[in-house]
């Protein structure tokens, strides 16, 4: 094998093959998917994220949440995602058409978040959990995101309505309250927006619903 040009051609051809198969073909098949309009319910899905949730998504990216949390539900019969309550149906390519970047994730050090907005709709829970995950999930290995909150002296008119309810060892010192910064609000809006229990032609919901 001492003939340089042959070597070059072989090297280029082999990669061209997988480039065609694994980049061009998926683009042709999945690259032009459109949202679905359900004619029975008049629901369009998926929809682009509203402003604050979209900002929260940027934080999700910036803080690297996607390294411990997936956003993909495996279909019934492969894994126990649906039995764990992570979603009512398996995820399909159309669910992700507005995502830049896509947060499919590759590790479940924490639970899947495809449907976290339905599982945990409460602001209070999310704020407390983000401030320190031990407050709601004792034994979690998730890091605290206290830097998304601020500690402020309670004003003369009493505690703010959006102060984070923290008990026991996590309670702020007397006369102070913990308030979410705008970033915390955005992140929670994003997490609350993650809901996937919408039927698509290629992904029906189970009949019992």
């Amino acid at each position, binding site marked *: 094998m001492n003939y340089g040009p042959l*070597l070059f051609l072989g090297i280029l051809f082999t990669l061209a093959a997988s480039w065609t198969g694994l980049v061009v073909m998926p683009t042709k098949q999945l*690259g032009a998917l459109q949202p679905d309009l359900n004619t029975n319910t008049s629901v369009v899905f998926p929809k682009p994220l509203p402003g604050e949730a979209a900002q929260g998504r940027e934080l999700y990216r910036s803080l*690297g949440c996607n390294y411990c949390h997936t956003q993909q539900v495996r279909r019934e019969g492969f894994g126990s995602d649906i039995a764990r309550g992570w979603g009512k149906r398996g995820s399909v390519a159309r669910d992700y058409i507005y*995502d830049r970047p896509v947060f499919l994730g590759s590790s479940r050090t924490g639970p899947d978040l495809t449907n976290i907005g339905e599982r945990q709709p409460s602001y209070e829970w999310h704020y407390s959990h983000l401030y320190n995950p031990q407050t709601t999930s004792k034994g979690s290995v998730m890091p605290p995101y206290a830097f998304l909150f601020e500690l402020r002296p309670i004003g003369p008119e009493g505690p703010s309505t959006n102060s984070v309810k923290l008990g026991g060892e996590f309670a702020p010192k007397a006369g102070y309250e913990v308030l979410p910064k705008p970033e915390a609000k955005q992140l929670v809006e994003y997490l609350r927006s993650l809901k996937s229990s919408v039927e698509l032609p290629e992904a029906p919901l189970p009949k019992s619903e």
Partner: protein
Amino acid sequence: MAALSPRGTATSDARAQLAEIDESCRGSVLLFFLSGMAWLLAGSVFALIASYKLHAPDFLGDFAWLTFGRIRTAHLNAVIYGFSAEISVGVILWMMCRLCRVPLMAQSVINLAALLWNFGLTIGIIGILAGDTTGVEYLELPKYCTPILFLAFALIAVWTIVIFRFRREKHLYVSQWYILAAVLWFPWLYSTAQLLLIMDPARGAVQAAVNWWFAHNVLGLWFTPVGLASIYYFLPKVIGRPIHSYYLSVLGFWTLALFYNWNGFHHLVGGPFPAWMITISIVASVMMVIPVVATAINHHFTMVGHFGKMRHSPTLRFIFIGAIAYTASSLQGVLSSVRWFSETAHFTHHTVAHAHWGMYAFFTMTMFGAMYYILPRITQREWPSDGLISLHFWTTLVGIAMYVLPLSLGGWFQGKAMLDPQIPFLEVVKITLPYLKIRTVSGLLLTLGHVAFFVNIAWLLVRTFGPYRAPEPMILAGVGTGNAPVGK
């Protein structure tokens, strides 16, 4: 057969030529090696912080820039694009010059590439810690630094091909095939990925497809060829006999080229994709048995009967571990790609262990071996401390075994527990804790080894460039001094 052996001929002309080549590589290769080692130390510190945080989440919890998601990402990019890529470049430039029998020409181009690369990467890592990550696995470096990296890499690729073009040796050795393939494949992979993921992202799930086509191929089409080129070069070189079978090398190379780059989608098993996409990658992953077994047989039959030489050659010791780890991690990768295995192991720490098996036990150990060979030749100095070499070898060997084996097992238990919906998620977390703690201890051992290696290199350089330059007896006796006459 002599031509098939990387030993070259023993005539004094040839030796003078080798010395000239080594001398020509000195500055550029040292630049890549030293900055690569600096990234290794930085990457080790990032890794220790990340690993510790995973079982003590409040540790350094008040700093956004040190949060797990960022420090873990800084670790990955520092060791992949810093350490592994830069050491690779040093090793392939030196091997290419040696195998082509031409000195490294216009070193300033390579030095410029090294400076650009380090500049771009430093900005990029700071960017990741500051929160500018792209959020795409293995491509986290922000888009304001990747064009710099691409330019640096283009210079390196072009220069490697230029060296090849002006070769004086007509015979092409197997290592050259792998090096050429790597430098041609990587720019294609990187530019496609940058374009379709960062610059102008493809629609939805297609990004994940491109992402894993790229991410798996960085390993398969860059690090694996560089690692194999090194094993093919150094194993016969140190032992002093040609590689066992030319035909197995050909078979191994072309089957790797054919199958490896189709593997990426086994990372998407169970994901929101048509079945054909996943299946085609699983089939290709299983086909990888052919190149892996061909290469394993070839390496083993070259090595057999020469195990005793490991006692005296640190290069052989590290390369031997690397070659075994290549076979083992590749076969384990085949297993991991299959659906029934993936159903359990996917999304667990098992995958993390597998990645370190490949990138560390195979690739990094092989690169350490290559550096143990190259550094004394380009500096014309012996390694100052045997003790540090032993410390480096044993801490990294024990460290990586202690990392990979328990974490593979722990990841499997984690996966099994996750499959049972009756087990609450926090119980699954609890199952993984002992393995995560062992991982931190193994990280400390690995870091100790890296420091030992770094000290030995620094000491070697003090002897080379420092005030003390007493002549030393060389293992290279007869190779000639640095300023040997050119071509006689």
